[in-house]
């Protein structure tokens, strides 16, 4: 088989084609869809899911899963409000502490998974409930409002004509692509997902790598919380609930194997964009929210089916 066909039948390529098809289909349906303003706004809306999807790609490539990201987001959003308003800390300090709390929450996930050998699904299912419960307990069902104007720049402002948070997202995404593709850390991540025992027998730092990945997942979830709070300029304890499913959908749609060992950050990015334009395009065409969900589910299944079908031909 030539290398050209090998590239073409990669999941990412199929997804890219699918993305372009959907893009044109949506544009022909509605002339408000394919405008710079709309697309930039959509990019702004997907930033929180997108941020978390980057470390989630690493997590799933190791064969793990992190269900607690939405709860960490909620907890960090609440803590930001509490540190700033109730404890009277300056906002930058509150942001720093909130990020630290998210990092600690991710580190705790990592410890449970590596030290106590709890399967990631169970461990993060437990912390999903635990962190959300903490968030609700701390917030006492009160929301925090009235953030200063400078803070809103992150979530609502622009920099060089592009939504501010998109620069942050681009930075995280580029870092993710670089680390997973080119570094020993990335190589170790793939090796763990494909054969953890062999990675261990090769002297690779399996535990440390997993610990770092889960910790990063917590940190980025906290970062997403800051962006989220800035965008909607309010905090509530139910923020980010269910976001883990959107994140996982984007990653899996992007071609990352849920069994680990295979996947790329680029794929996740395409998966993410595909989801977002489907949501937006369909709602612009007057499809209701529940209909959109059905379409996204169907697209996920179709993408995975095509990819499976083609990989049967490529695995000579």
């Amino acid at each position, binding site marked *: 088989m030539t290398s050209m066909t090998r590239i073409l039948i990669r999941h990412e390529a199929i997804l890219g084609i699918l993305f372009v098809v959907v893009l044109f289909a949506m544009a022909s349906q509605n002339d408000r869809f394919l405008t710079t303003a709309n697309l930039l706004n959509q990019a702004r809306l997907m930033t929180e899911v997108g941020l978390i999807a980057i470390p989630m790609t690493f997590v799933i490539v190791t064969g793990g899963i992190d269900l607690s990201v939405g709860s960490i987001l909620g907890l960090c959003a609440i803590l930001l409000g509490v540190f700033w308003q109730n404890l009277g800390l300056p906002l930058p300090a509150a942001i720093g502490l909130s990020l630290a709390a998210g990092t600690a929450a991710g580190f705790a996930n990592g410890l449970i998974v590596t030290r106590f050998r709890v399967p990631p699904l169970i461990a993060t299912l437990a912390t999903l409930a635990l962190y959300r419960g903490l968030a609700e307990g701390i917030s006492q069902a009160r929301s925090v409002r009235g953030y200063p104007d400078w803070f809103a720049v992150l979530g609502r402002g622009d920099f060089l004509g592009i939504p501010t948070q998109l620069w942050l997202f681009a930075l995280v995404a580029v870092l993710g692509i670089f680390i997973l593709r080119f570094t020993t850390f990335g190589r170790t991540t*793939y090796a763990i997902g494909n054969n953890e025992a062999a990675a261990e027998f090769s002297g690779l730092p399996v535990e440390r790598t997993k610990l770092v990945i889960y910790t990063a997942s917590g940190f980025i979830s906290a970062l997403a919380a800051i962006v989220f709070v800035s965008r909607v300029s309010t905090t509530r304890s139910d923020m980010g609930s269910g976001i883990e499913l959107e994140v996982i959908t984007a990653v899996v749609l992007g071609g990352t194997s849920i069994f680990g060992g295979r996947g790329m950050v680029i794929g996740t990015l395409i998966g993410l964009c595909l989801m977002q334009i489907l949501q937006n395009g369909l709602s612009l065409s007057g499809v209701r929210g529940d209909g959109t969900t059905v379409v996204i589910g169907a697209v996920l299944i179709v993408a995975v089916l095509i990819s499976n079908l083609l990989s049967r031909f490529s695995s000579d």
Partner: protein
Amino acid sequence: MTPILELKNISKAFGPVKVLTGVDFDLRPGEVHALMGENGAGKSTMIRIAAGDHRAEEGEIRLDGEVRRFAGPREAQAEGIIVVHQELLLFPALSVAENVFLGHQPKTAAGLVDWGRMRREARDLLDRLDCPNLDVDQKVSRLSVADRQRVEIARALSRNARVLIMDEPTAALAEADVRRLLEVIRRLRSEGVAIVYVSHRMNEIFEIADRVTVLRDGVSVGTRPIGEVTEASLVSMMVGRDIHQLFPKEDVPRGETRLELRGVSLAGVVEDISFDLHAGEILGIAGLVGSGRTELAQTIFGVTPATSGEILVDGKPRKIGSVREAIDAGIAYVPEDRGLHGLVRAQPLRENVSMAILDRLTRYSVVDTGREQNLASDAIERFSIRARDARQRVGQLSGGNQQKVVLAKWLATDPKILILDEPTRGIDIGAKTEIHRLMGELAKKGLAILMISSELPEVLGMSDRVLVMREGRLSAIVDRKDATPDAVGAAMMQGRREPARAGAAR
């Protein structure tokens, strides 16, 4: 007497690899027919064809004189052809009776499982196998390997086995259990069951078999009544040469001490091991499966760090608490289970070869793919690995080539001490000889080699000294000149129950 099962002129290939070529085999009722041959000779494939797992491309299978084609294992089982596999295929969470009747439980008139009858019949079957102490309600997970095997045999009998194919049934058994198994086989034979018995162990073959067929490189070398062969003639039938030609052992002067163990233990598994290993030396470790050989190797390599004792590398005590520390101390370990511990099969050859030295191939923790590519190309050339290119996934290579990739990976770490755990298991004769030659070369260059092997000829043929393990302890260290099959075999077995009868079997 018409043979119950007859394979005629069977050929089978997997892709381009010819596994069997024109093999004939026949089995009579009430006989034990031994099937011998080296790893990769085609024994397993032949068994699978007889059991309906694989289809032969050429040739025919006759059952009671009639030509049959089995579409799958179920059809063969319905005819009473049952395989007792080497790795027992039982369900640990289910009871003995449930395992025996899994898939064909006796039913009541209402179509529910008839538990009473099932337990009664399981009991009868086990009594027939002379194990009255085995409780039919016991969970299989609680049973010893020997008892599990009996359950597996009972399962075969519950399907009215007329042909019982046993694939290395004694590989994991202690001597006393081997005796009992042979008793059971005799009993089944007297009931008219025809048995194909695959084993490497000569004394068992001579004790139990009526006839023996030897396969070599996918061809049947011949079928003989057991009275017409000797151990030596069987070995030369199997390898086609005598042992001395097979193992090109070179004399290398013994260098300085590289590795020394002083009273090393891994609590409950390996006890009080002391020995030394010199540059240029190949030290073989012999012992039965379960004698602690692999566990010892993995203790030296830091997978399961020693709980007491001292490990000295080049005369200096080294704390080896992890694989990383072992690699840094100059130790490399080629594991027994290639697929599980040796390789990441889904990844390219290139990434496998560099895996143990990734940290040395980086600049600012970015992998230098140029150097990695060179490393891989060199490995392909040096070990003549048959691969499309360095990007080919390792899982697509043959067993022998996979093993060479593992060797390349570990030699890339530039070790002083190389531990080889079953280095030639499951690979073809050609690759085997290449690996043996390579071992000699490495020893000549001053590497200290520790080799674990279950194949006695390999241990005796390659080693300068043989270290024998038994039940987690060192039972003897034998010099090359004194290392005869009898001496090493005795050290492997001694202290077990009924050693006298095991010896008398010869």
